[in-house]
């Protein structure tokens, strides 16, 4: 995994695993690899991976089962909420940046529609 050195590594690992959960690469109820295996997979340190997992456990997306490991939550409603949260965060960034370019709300909607249309044609 290529990390951005400016952003806390635990946060990037957290987002990476959230991404895996939302896209379904990790299914509800699925067991996560061991902490050390995850560390090897993403080339990070075991403590940093542990911190990322702790944050996800607090957010109730991951469940830690004593002696058995970490599992993706079975509650799909929580995964849906997570998806809304991540999508909102992305939209917020785009919205703020376009606003900073003095685009009005209507102009933002129009330019997004145009963009999506162009992307569709490019395919």
């Amino acid at each position, binding site marked *: 995994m290529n*990390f951005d*050195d*400016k952003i806390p*590594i635990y*946060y990037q690992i957290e987002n990476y695993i959230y991404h895996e959960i939302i896209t379904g690469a990790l299914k509800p109820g699925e067991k996560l690899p061991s902490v*050390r295996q995850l560390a090897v997979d993403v080339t990070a*340190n075991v403590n*940093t991976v542990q911190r990322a997992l702790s944050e996800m456990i607090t957010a109730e997306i991951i469940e830690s089962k004593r002696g058995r490991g970490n599992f993706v939550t079975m509650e799909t409603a929580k995964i849906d909420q997570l998806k809304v949260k991540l999508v909102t965060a992305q939209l917020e960034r785009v919205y703020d940046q376009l606003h900073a370019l003095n685009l009005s709300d209507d102009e933002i909607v129009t330019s997004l529609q145009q963009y999506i249309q162009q992307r569709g044609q490019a395919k």
Partner: protein
Amino acid sequence: MTDSLTMQGVIYKRGMKTILHDVDLTLTPGKIVGLLGENGAGKTTLMRLITGSAKGKGTTMVNGAASEAERKQYVSFSEQLRGFSGNVKLSRILDFYETVYSDFEADRFTELADFLQIDTSLKLAALSKGMKEKLVIALTLARRTSLYLLDEPFSGIDSMSRKKIINSIIQWKPENATMVISDHYVSEIAPILDEIVVVKDQTIYTHRKADEVREKFNIGIEAYYESLYERGNDYD
């Protein structure tokens, strides 16, 4: 749990010249620590003070032990194998390590050598620079101890070998052991570091958690490290 390393008021002089002064440093178990500083800043000297091969004033304890003999037992230092002739077979070096270090685990070495693709039937002189560094890493990590000191393990090594070495560190560092990796080029190891220690002005200039630097200053470890050398741009 006992600290992996405690240094208090350590001073080291060579002749009239002060190399390091007022060194206070505590490392807790289970960490990977980047020891950063320019060439000649005293990183290797600091490591030699920890192992006891350099003798300074002040207190140095490894895993709670102050005597040099005990410290040697708790520290695995990446020796550059200068004591061996080029003619020696790698298997002989292995025998030597097994004899000298009671915590050297031959099985661990075999696993590491497999992973790093080291051909142990070769002679020392036949190894490329990268391969020799891999051998040093395998020998250092094959001991099961409390504190590992890797002195510039990535200098002059191609990026594939670097990645392999970084992966072997993640995989083979015992959970409660602490590892200090010195480097003057930080970007490659930055993601695996828990903490950074910067040696500058003949002392420990700063000691911080890596993710704290990123969170607090919104900059990368390399940019932070470089900023310490630019006057009037101190993040403190």
